[in-house]
């Protein structure tokens, strides 16, 4: 489909690897610009009674800060910048994707997989840095009968390594399925013409509202799961 196509704007190849500047990269830069304007320009006044832009910046900060505090406790707050960056980046990319004729970066699995792999490696790094080899006890839950232990351990290892895949596919599938659905209903509008096309058009308006909710929700879910995984690594004794 046309809206998911990657276009090369500046073709560039270094040592056989494609480094072209694509529309995907362009929209990531736009997202960074939007975030920078929101956070730097919005917080410029540092007013005691915040204006509109400052309110948005403060609300998003408070929202993520509360999420991190609730899910990982005090120790998790030192990783707040990382989690906030992930949240605001995914949220901005999802929301920019809702603008007509834009490009949804998060509807490509390689982008979401890179983000999920980053989270996965980060959790492993934090877990080993905090607990040393004791981090491997994550795979051996306490209070399990000895007979069940081999089976449970295999399952735990499996569920641990499936995390980056489920995390990335969840975000990518939601964004792609939503945009495809809108496209399919847009085709119905055109196909049914002036007389019958109003019903799918009304549905599309409602569905666009739902998609905005999903765009926010998926950024939220990605971040909450990051916090939960981080909590596993920080608080081993469960």
């Amino acid at each position, binding site marked *: 489909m046309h809206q998911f196509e990657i276009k090369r704007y500046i073709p560039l190849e270094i040592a056989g690897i494609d480094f072209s500047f694509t529309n995907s990269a362009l929209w990531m830069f736009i997202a960074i610009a939007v975030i920078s304007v929101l956070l730097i320009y919005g917080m410029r006044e540092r007013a005691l009674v915040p204006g509109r832009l400052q309110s948005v910046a403060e609300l998003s900060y408070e929202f993520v800060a509360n999420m991190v505090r609730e899910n990982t406790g005090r120790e998790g707050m030192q990783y707040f910048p990382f989690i906030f960056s992930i949240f605001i980046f995914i949220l901005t990319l999802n929301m920019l994707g809702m603008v007509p004729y834009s490009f949804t970066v998060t509807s490509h699995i390689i982008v979401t997989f890179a983000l999920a792999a980053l989270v996965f490696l980060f959790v492993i790094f934090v877990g080993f840095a905090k607990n040393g080899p004791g981090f491997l006890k994550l795979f051996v839950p306490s209070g399990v009968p000895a007979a069940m232990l081999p089976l449970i351990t295999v399952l735990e290892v499996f569920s641990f390594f499936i995390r980056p895949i489920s995390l990335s596919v*969840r975000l990518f*599938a*939601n964004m*792609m*399925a939503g945009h495809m659905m809108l496209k399919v209903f847009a085709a119905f509008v055109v196909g049914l013409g002036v007389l019958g096309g109003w019903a799918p058009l009304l549905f599309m308006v409602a569905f666009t509202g739902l998609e905005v909710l999903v765009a926010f*929700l998926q950024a*939220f*879910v990605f971040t909450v799961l990051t916090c939960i995984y981080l909590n596993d690594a920080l608080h081993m004794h469960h």
Partner: protein
Amino acid sequence: MDPAAAKLIGAGIASTALIGAGLGIGNIFGSYLTGALRNPSAAPGQFPNLLLGFALAEATGLFGLIVALIILFVF
């Protein structure tokens, strides 16, 4: 059987994963309403969990949809 027909049937079967997603989403919102009507004062505190559960349930159905799309467009 014609391979093209088998492909379409397979994609159709794969998208039945959305049945489970529908059941899950209905169950989550139904349970939330049941709980919220019994104890309305505790309901707002559980709203983030409701959204989390909704998104997680929806995602499992979309995994099936992705399998259907892979069958249709990759093979």
